[in-house]
Structures are given as C-alpha cells and as structure tokens.
C-alpha cells in the first residue's frame, strides 16, 4: 500500500542505470515470486518457537517507513534490551526482494502488506508463528485472527498489525450528498478531475466495481480474475484513463490534488481524508455500495531470522493496545487490537471514529483485503491471472 505515503523516492537515481546495474548484482539470482505450481508453503513443516527465551540483544526489521518510530521503539529497547535496526522499504515488491532467501540470515521481521504476504509464504521466506506466545492475540478483531492472506491451513505466518480501507474521497462542493457508487470514478462527467493510486493492485478496485456493475462477468473475488474478467477490467481502466488527472504516487500528491481543486473525486486512504479535513478542505470520504478494497499489514517472521526471541518480544510489543493506538494515530490506520480504541480517543479525541476502529464486524466484511493474485483460484482451477500480468497490464494502462 503505502509505498507512496512513505516514499521510496527519497533515493533518487540520477542516471537510473547505475543503481539498476548494482541492483542486478544483488537480486539477479534471487527468485522473488510466489509459490510453485502445487502451491505448498515450503516452511509449513517448521516447528515454531515454543517458549520465548532470553533476547539476543538486537532485532533487524524491514518496515514501512513510520512503522518503527522512536515513540514505541525506544521503550521497547529499554524494556527488552533488543536494539532495533529498521530498514525501510518503499514498496511491497522491494520487501519481497529484501526478504529473499528467508531474510538472508540478516532480517528477523517484515511488516508486509497483504499483496506481498502470499509471495513471501510461497517463496519460503517466512515461517510459522506460534500465536500462543502472542498474549494480545485473543483480543484481535475476529477477522484478523486468521485472515486468509497470512494464515494457510490454520498455520499463521505472522501477526496482523494494522489495516485500512481504500475509500472514495470526494469534494463536498461537487457532491452535495455522498456518492453511493464507485461509478463516479468512471464517469465522463468528471473528465480530468479524477485520481487513483499508481499501483497495479488498483486493478482490483475496478474488478470490485464490475462485480456489481456487470454481474454477467461473474466476478466473485477481485483478486481472482479469469482471463475474460481480467480483460474486461483492463478495458474499463483504459477507458478511465482520459478522466485521470494524475495517478498518485504519494499520499501527499493526492492531498495536493484535492487541496488545489485539481480533482473532485478519487480513491484514497482515510489518512488523506483526515489530513485534508484538518486543513479545512471541503472533502469527505465514503465506502460506496459496491464495498471497498483495503490493505492489512502483518509482521512476518523470516525463515532464517537470527534473533527469534527478540522478534517474538517485538510482535508482542506492537500488539499491545497502547502501541497499537500510538501507531494507528501516528500513521492513520486502524489497529488490529480491539482494546486500542479507547486509548486512541484518549490520545486524540475522535480518532477511533475517524479511523473506523469502532465499526462492527459487518463493516470489515465489506472490505476486500489486498492479497497476491495467483494463478490458482479458489475454484480449484489454475486459470486465474497471476500478479505478473497485473503489473504488465498496469504499465500498459498508465504508460
């Protein structure tokens, strides 16, 4: 998700090629993809830790920027003696590359988003986690205890952390009442005034819209598309292109686009809505009748993690209601721990409501969480379009 909010563009390549050629050296031989044809998680048989022992004194994380903030890292280091080193990654793809070879005996944990999880699991880069050792786990929202993007056949490959919906953000000047459908993002009426994220996973948003707009296509899961469904979705996105003012890369891009009134509607995270409203911009967000996609992040344990005890201590630490609330507010997302809500409100009045943390479970059921599109579909057939083709198609749409 937040490849954008966090950047990843801080590093700038003047000639581009230099960095790339070095990148080739480091990644060339590393397989980065999802599992093999049989789809069996290679690490499923590894027996997880049974008891958290003495800390190793250090912990190496791959994280989204903002996920290892001094606010909760410093007290963790004091309490456990585990010194935290965080390497920030700019995109899901980068996380998968960094985690290749089970974290390379270098990294312990990665804060992967749902679109990377299955790639990591089937790539054998992460291993099972013993949930009995995570004391706050039983207070997690029910749907985040064993979600299908990080739990397979009852085996957990990580601890859910935070999540958020991709909402429909709109200008209240243009829309006096909240739009009820995503169709406004595909309507010629708003030509040149629409923005959507520059991310291949955005294809799922269009598929979700088609699920109800064109029932004849028979889409049931926006991440599992047959070739025909995929083609129809891509065609919709191609027809959407003339309406797009900009495919946004950074959350701040989109905030800017709304602030300057360049756009009147777009796909966004609650973070943008809250920031814009705090700046007195005339905007609001909604989840239209078709539902919404969303992201959910998981701390996943590297197969070759050199510091497993510190890793478990960290997973426990970030699951506590207080740290969950701190991260939710500092980052603008929804905590997995159901006890975090009152603490959020203490820290910042109304924040629990603002980030939808107090909604009933039915609300979350309307969110289709990001997961890696694989060629194997739930129907048992192997005719779904894999992620590779999603990225190719996305380049063709935006290029």
């Amino acid at each position, binding site marked *: 998700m937040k490849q954008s909010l966090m950047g990843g563009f801080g590093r700038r390549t003047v*000639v*581009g090629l230099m960095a*790339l050629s*070095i990148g080739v050296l480091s990644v060339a031989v590393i397989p980065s993809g999802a599992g*093999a*044809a049989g789809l069996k998680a290679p690490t499923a048989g590894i027996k997880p830790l049974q008891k958290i022992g003495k800390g190793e004194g250090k912990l190496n994380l791959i994280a989204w920027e903002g996920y290892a903030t001094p606010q909760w890292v410093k007290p963790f280091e004091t309490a456990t003696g585990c010194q935290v080193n965080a390497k920030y990654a700019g995109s899901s*793809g980068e996380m998968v590359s960094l985690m290749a070879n089970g974290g390379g005996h270098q990294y312990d944990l990665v804060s992967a988003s749902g679109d990377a999880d299955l790639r990591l699991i089937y790539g054998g880069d992460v291993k099972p986690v013993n949930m009995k050792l995570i004391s706050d786990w039983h207070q997690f929202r029910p749907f985040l205890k064993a979600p299908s993007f990080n739990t397979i056949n009852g085996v957990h490959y990580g601890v859910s952390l935070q999540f958020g919906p991709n909402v429909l953000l709109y200008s209240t000047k243009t829309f006096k009442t909240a739009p009820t459908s995503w169709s406004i993002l595909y309507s010629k009426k708003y030509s040149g005034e629409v923005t959507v994220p520059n991310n291949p996973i955005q294809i799922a948003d269009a598929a979700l819209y088609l699920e109800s707009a064109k029932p004849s296509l028979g889409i049931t899961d926006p991440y599992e598309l047959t070739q025909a469904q995929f083609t129809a979705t891509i065609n919709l996105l191609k027809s959407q292109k003339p309406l797009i003012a900009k495919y946004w890369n950074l959350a701040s891009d989109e905030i800017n686009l709304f602030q300057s009134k*360049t756009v009147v509607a777009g796909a966004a995270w609650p973070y943008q809505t809250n920031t814009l409203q705090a700046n007195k911009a005339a905007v609001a967000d909604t989840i239209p009748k078709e539902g919404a996609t969303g992201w959910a992040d998981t701390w996943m344990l590297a197969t070759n993690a050199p510091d497993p005890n510190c890793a478990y201590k960290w997973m426990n630490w970030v699951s506590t209601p207080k740290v969950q609330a701190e991260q939710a507010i500092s980052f603008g997302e929804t905590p997995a721990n159901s006890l975090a809500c009152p603490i959020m409100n203490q820290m910042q009045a109304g924040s629990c409501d603002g980030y939808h943390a107090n909604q009933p479970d039915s609300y979350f059921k309307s969110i289709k969480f990001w997961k890696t599109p694989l060629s194997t579909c739930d129907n048992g057939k192997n005719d779904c379009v894999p992620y590779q083709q999603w*990225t190719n198609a996305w380049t063709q749409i935006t290029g």
Partner: protein
Amino acid sequence: MTTSVDTKAKSGGPRALHSSALARSRWRTAFLLSPPLLWFLVIYLSSLVLMLITSFWSVNDFTSQIDHQLTGSNFSQISSGAYPSIILRTVLLAALVTITDAVVAFPFAYVMARVATQRSQRLLLGAVLLPLWASYLAKVYAWISILEKGGALNWTFSKLGLPDPNLGFTNGAMWIAFCYIWLPYMIVPIYGSLERIPNSLLDASADLGGSSWSTFRRVILPLALPGLLAGSIFTFSLTLGDYVTPLLIGGSNSTLIGNAIYENLLNGGNLPLAAALSVVPIVIMVVYLTIAKRLGAFEAL
C-alpha cells in the same frame, strides 16, 4: 663513419637510461591505477554485463520465478504495447529539454564569458551553481506549487485577464521542471568553451571584414560547439534516466523509461524485463555519444 658510430654510442646511453626509468614509471602507474581499474571492471562493467545477460532471461508467469533460459521475449515485449510510446516520449522529451536548455544557456554563457566584468562574472557563475545546492525534490515541489491550479502561474494569468494555463501535472510541466533543473549543466560547459576563445580570433575575423553575425556563425559557434555538445550529453542523459520528476509533476500520460523500469523492478518483480528496458537508454546514449564524439564534444570536457 666514426662520427656515426659515435653518435650511436652516445645516443644509446641516454636511451637505455630513459627506457628503464620508463619501465619503472609504468609499473608505478599500473600499481596506482589498478584499484580504480579493478573497481571499474568488477563493479561497473561486470554489473552492466550481468544486466545485459539478465535482459535475456524471463520470469515464469505461473511461478514468478526467474527462468535462466536465454530468450528474446523481453525485447519483443518492449517493442509492443505501451512501451514504444513510452520510449518515444522519453527521447522526445530529452531532446526538447536539451534544445530548450541550449537556447536559454547560450546567450547567458556568452554574457558570462565575454561581456561581463570579472567581478560580475563570478557573481553570475555563483548564481548558476547555487540552485545545485538545493535539493532536487524541493525544486520539483516548488514547480508544482507554481504550475498547479490555484498556483502562482494561474494567479498571474487571471490577474492579466488571460485564461488559466493549468499546466500542473502535464507533460508541459515535466518539460519546464526538467529545463530548469538541468540548466546549470548546460551553462557551465558552454561557458567553459566560450571563455577559451582567444580574442585574437575575433579581431582577425573583424579585420578580415567579417560582420558580427558572420563572426558569431563562423568563429564563435564552431569553437563553442564542443561545450554545447558536452552540455547536451548531461541534459539529455539526465532526462533520459529520470523517474522522480514524472512521478511528482507528471500527469496521467507521463510515464518515462525510468518509471517503467522502476515499476517492473520494484512493483512487478520482473527483473529481466526491467533489465531489457534499461538496455534501451544505454543504446540511445551509445548512439548519442558516438555522434557527439564525431563532432568533438569530448574536447571540452
């Protein structure tokens, strides 16, 4: 006869001495050069070769694993679909930025090198180089706030009673931002080559009855050409490889080669396709540099 033997004997001595000194200095040179040379060969060239090899691999659509079988499929892929227009857009933009910068930079460099007093020359050079100290991102964001709706440009136009240009998030915005950011890289080499033109040549041209226009066309321009070409190598290659400016200030039709590489590498995990795409600017630059070398660009570097 004897004299010739003598001369041989005489000349043999110093030559022998000279060659042993030469051998020693050759060893020293080799010793001093080997670390950077090794760096160049191992880190720089070998990674380029690796990239070239990678561009002939492929990614299995089903498993997403890299398939080490050599294939040309990446190159057929980048010659179809959206890629040709991405490549064309990038090259056209790089050319346009280069031409614009050359047109803007030349008179500026000329004034700096040949008209300004020594004191103002230093001031002007400082003014040209000063923006290089500011962050690239800060400059791009500054241009966003100038060009976007409700920005300084629209405001100025509306005060003048003109229609809104609305340049924010368009390819025009990219062009302006690139021209601004790379301008110093064009001014400095042109300035260098103009400054080196001896006054005597201009005097000679005037003495021979050349008008100021023909002096410019037949004396100054040919002598400044290497500097102009050197500057164009910078502006052209920097635009060709950039992917940040299009991300920030570009619109919905602003994907450049760099963005396509970035997308395939970091989001798509398709390393071979990204490598194949990276070969494109290399080929373009090799052609460009070959032409520039023929025209004498490297004499001014």
